[in-house]
């Protein structure tokens, strides 16, 4: 997935000029951050902290756990400081990969204690939000029933605010593939909500 494609390869991938220059600037400042530049560190923290938190919060369905995971992401990045490492060309993708792996670890650990098959789709645990309507709960639980990759995609798009082409760049996939997957996931969500609306109207 988003794995080692962030680390520079000699082959290089063709991108539009503007995005490539932006990415190279970001890559340079990320390398400065890793070399000990605190201003660069603050820039990345302010740019990505909330996004990483939102991403984790929706993947693990718990804001407090997401906070811990976000903190762990930064700890891991800070640990890389003053160490020799290859140039990271896609810092955003790199950070989201760390977050993704930590979220998957968290979900795996949780699976040891709760059997997902033993509970119905609508009862899949998600964080209780006081004041949320049935429809909101349905949307949240429907999001949880999607495949992890599809859910991740929708979360990056709808919660973190990334466009599909940006997600494609981050994940190292073609925009068309991302678009198809997102469309399919969205269609599943719509169908579930449509059924619920019909039930309410009857």
């Amino acid at each position, binding site marked *: 997935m988003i794995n080692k494609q962030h680390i520079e390869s000699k082959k290089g991938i063709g991108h539009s000029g503007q995005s490539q220059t932006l990415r190279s600037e970001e890559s340079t400042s990320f390398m400065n951050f890793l070399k000990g530049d*605190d201003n660069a560190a603050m820039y990345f923290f302010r740019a990505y902290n909330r996004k990483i938190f939102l991403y984790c*919060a929706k993947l693990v369905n718990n804001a407090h756990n997401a906070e811990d995971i976000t*903190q762990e992401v930064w700890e891991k990045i800070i640990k890389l400081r003053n160490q020799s490492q290859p140039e990271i060309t896609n810092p955003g993708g790199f950070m989201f990969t760390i977050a993704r792996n930590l979220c998957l670890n968290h979900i795996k650990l949780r699976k040891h204690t709760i059997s997902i098959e033993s509970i119905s789709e609508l009862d899949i645990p998600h964080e209780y*939000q006081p004041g949320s309507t049935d429809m909101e709960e349905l949307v949240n639980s429907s999001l949880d029933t999607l495949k992890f990759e599809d859910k991740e995609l929708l979360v990056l798009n709808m919660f973190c605010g990334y466009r599909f082409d940006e997600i494609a760049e981050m994940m190292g996939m073609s925009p068309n593939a991302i678009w198809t997957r997102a469309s399919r996931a*969205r269609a599943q969500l719509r169908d579930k909500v449509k059924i619920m609306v019909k039930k309410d109207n009857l």
Partner: protein
Amino acid sequence: MNSHETVDKFLNGLLSPEETAQFLQKVEHDAELRSLLESDRIINSCINKERIQLMHHDLSGVAGAFVAGLASTGSIASSGLITASYAKKAGMSWITLATSSALSISVCAGAYWFINSNGPTNPKATQKNNQLIHVEQAEPITINVPVTIQDKTPEIAKNKTKSLKQSQTQRGKQMIQDVSMPPAKKLQLEHSSSKYRPKTQE
């Protein structure tokens, strides 16, 4: 192109003006399309609501940990004010900063007071002490000293010489007892494979 794809393209502005016009005409007559658009609207509103809630989640803890992590790498935190400014930049609110600093000051002050206080901290004990002092101050103690004191030094000297003589006689008796003790048993090695095994000779 199925209806889901058309809706997605319409919502993402990927339809041409002609296609958009056709789609809008279709929506007026097609209940299926209308329900899809309605469910999409519901999904968006639910997700936006949750997103807003998560956007307001306090991430001061993460910011604090991040600044502490940077400080541990040794590049910042040469002074408390610099650290505080970085923490503010990272997203910690002034209230959190002020509270944490006030808490640390109070803890330091408490520790200083505890270390430097030698007296008992128990209020009952202090009350008892106060009572004693009060009693001592209230009733002055009178000591009756006899007018003539008998000189008892010759008696003490006699007792001393007696005790010395007694101790000397006791020591002499012990010496005699030691001399009359039977001689210690001699040890002889046995002529066997275990030549180090001692055997007593009677």
